[in-house]
């Protein structure tokens, strides 16, 4: 292959790269325009249009700002269950976002969905999101390995090296445990209809053991037909129809 051929191949590659970048930029601009249009609808007080536009964007992909804006639109439209659902989804992507946490707390208080005080373990697990815990565990493990494998000639003495390695190992273990705890709630759901009925068995004709408020977060258990065995934040459990709640992670 001579120089002319190389030039030709490079030129074609460059052309294809440019084309793909232009297409990607165009698509991004479309999304951005749609996002701005939905935000404008929200600002005008046209929350239904805002919901429609944010929802259609979320079908193509999700981001914390998009889910947060969608949650705000639902909140202003009076659909507290779906608002809480989307705040929870946004928190899965950006657990440290104070706007998301603040608005979620506000809607919960507004709807009387007061939570019991968290235990130390629960507070620890929810201190970071699942992805943050995984990232922290990975970084700490790499550091642990590097510190142990670092040649002695680099100057780190034995005892400081062991102290740093132990600290890294502790952080790794703690992060993995917290990630496991956090993942247990990854597939939780949120009640999206008003006064959903908890039943003693998975049938529409089964006796009701009470109602469960819109916006309550549920931990889902086994499935039978169109019903799921659920447990809510207050510890009540029973069978709930699948159309009365939505999963936070699967959508």
């Amino acid at each position, binding site marked *: 292959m001579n120089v002319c051929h190389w030039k030709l191949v490079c030129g074609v590659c460059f052309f294809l790269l440019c084309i793909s970048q232009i297409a990607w930029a165009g698509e991004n601009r479309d999304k951005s325009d749609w996002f701005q249009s939905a935000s404008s609808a929200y600002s*005008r007080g046209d929350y239904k249009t805002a919901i429609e536009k944010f929802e259609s964007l979320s079908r193509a992909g999700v981001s914390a700002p998009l889910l947060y804006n969608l949650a705000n639109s639902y909140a*202003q439209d009076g659909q507290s269950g779906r608002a809480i659902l989307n705040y929870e989804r946004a928190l899965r*992507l950006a657990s440290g976002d104070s706007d998301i946490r603040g608005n979620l707390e*506000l*809607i919960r208080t507004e709807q009387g969905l007061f939570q019991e005080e968290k235990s130390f373990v629960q507070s620890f697990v929810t201190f970071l999101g699942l*992805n943050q815990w*995984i990232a922290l565990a*990975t970084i700490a493990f790499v550091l642990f390995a590097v510190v142990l*494998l670092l040649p002695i000639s680099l100057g780190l003495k034995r005892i400081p090296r062991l102290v740093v390695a132990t600290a890294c190992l502790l952080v790794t273990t703690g992060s993995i445990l917290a990630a496991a705890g956090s993942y247990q709630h990854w597939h939780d759901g949120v009640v999206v209809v008003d006064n959903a009925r908890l039943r003693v068995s998975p049938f529409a004709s089964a006796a009701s053991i009470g109602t469960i408020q819109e916006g309550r977060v549920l931990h889902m258990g086994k499935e039978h037909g169109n019903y799921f065995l659920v447990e809510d934040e207050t510890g009540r459990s029973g069978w709930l129809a699948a159309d009365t709640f939505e999963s936070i*992670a699967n959508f």
Partner: protein
Amino acid sequence: MKSRQYFQHTKIVIISCLLAMLLLTGVQPLKAAVEVSASLNTQSFPLDRVAALSIMVKGVRSFQPQMPEVDGLQFHQRGQSTQVEIINGAYSASVTSTFLVQALRAGTFTIPAIQIRTKDGNARTDPITFEVTDSNRGAVSAQGRSSASSTARLRSGEADEVAFLRVKPARKKSYSGEVVPVQIKVYFRDGIKANLNSLPLLDGEGFILHQLEREPMQTREIINNTQYTVLTWDSSLSGIKEGTHKLSVELEATLLLREQRRVSPRGNSMFNDPFFGNSFFDNFFGSYREKEVKIASPELDLTVLSLPEDGRPEEFSGAIGDFRLHVTADPVELQPGDPITLTMTVSGQGNFDRVQSPELTREEGWKSYTPSSEFLKDGGPGHGKKVFEQALVAKDPALTEIPAIEFSYFDPATASYKTLTANPIPLRIKGLVVEKKDSEPVKEEIQEKEKTEDAAALQTVEPRINTLAPLQLIPGSMDQKLEPLFVKKWFQLLVVLIILVLFAAVIYRLRATRYANNPLLQRNQAMKHLLVLRLKEIDNALAANDTRGFLASCRGAIQEQLGLAWETEAGTITLADLQKRLPGDSVLLTVFSAAEESAYGGQELNVQQMEKFAQDLKQELEGLG
């Protein structure tokens, strides 16, 4: 000391009680009198069928009846069963011996008194008189009725012999919506094997039967000297339509009936009817036949009354029964704006599905939220408690108590409405309201952000929730799915890469450690390294036809390699050392002596000699490593 005596005394009392109980249970059967009874399951039966004679003796564990001889009658013994019961400490035992009575002609017969001999003495039964009719006058049997359809319908009173169903409501008159406990009992005669195909179902209008337990209680009962296995469901009925309604309960079952194999003197038909002949008495070699039946209870007339209009409270939600109300609040010492959880428990017996949350008598100054409810069953049908949890927030910090809470219901026992009232709960709200201060910065932020976006729109629209943080302006990077990091491909690749790098680093570190701790390995490495350098010098000298340089390099190579091998300083090795430690024909010795001669005597080599020396030397030195 005193306590020790007390414990010893208590021990003696407990042991005495246990001994007394044991003695009582042992003595009871000795004291029980022997009672004898004999019964025939029918007063009249056709000639081509048989009757069942049961002789029951109470107070013994076994007996042997002496059957009398009666002209025209034959007795076939079919077995003996024993029943032992201990009820409230009272012990009783009874033995039932069963016989098939077969008539050889029509007419009226009398079984005379039967002599019973037991260990405790002799006893006699009463004589039994019965009639045997001609074959064509037989009673209608369940099997006969079932010939028209595949499923026979057994209503109590018609076929009590095999299986029947009884419904016992607590009351025959009830109010609309009231929960009336009802007991449903299905009786299967002993020896009948049955599979239930359904739960008892209500047949009739105006009532609903509440959900039944899947597993009924199973007991045994003796009715008319016949033992039955009884399945009992405790449930409840609720009237939904005023007036008097006919009601019965049905249950579908498959009976496994033993087929008669024995050939009677008058043909097969006599023992072929299991409904009459009772499969219990059939011989043990008979096969089973499945029979689907619908067991129905006798019809009952139940009346549903309407609730009185007089004295009906405004907040009455339809609760009928007997209830109690208990209310607690937590916390009762709080900061302004803090939520209070009000727990209201309505317990008792009644239609809890109609029990709604009790209400505050005064709602001014309070923001109340929709309560959640939970029903907890406690005891029989309609017994339990319903717990309502309601969040309250005091809008006015000057409030000092949660107002009284009321709950109204209808009491069917007194036929009047009642209202339960829970007393006000004192509260202590600390400090003053500072809500505005908290919300101001948020509001300012909202205004600033939205001004940049749509200032005009902000002025005209009043959002439903003012204190929400504003929208975010940039959509951010989009993910296809909401999934954890460890599910993403790039993260998995990164982890694999990290693991590979760490693995390589570990191997490198292990090798380095091994090298550092092994002098032999280090020496071999050094020899190899120096040999490569020297051989390069030798090749260069050979190419330049430089005899002196060539031999000097050869000498140096020999000294270095032998120095490392012998662990001595390379420069100190002389021809004398080589002569002392190497064999006389060694190539090294030859080359070294040639190098010495060249250095001190000016000896020159031709190209062929140099090439041979180089080749031999290379081979010899490589062999040293």
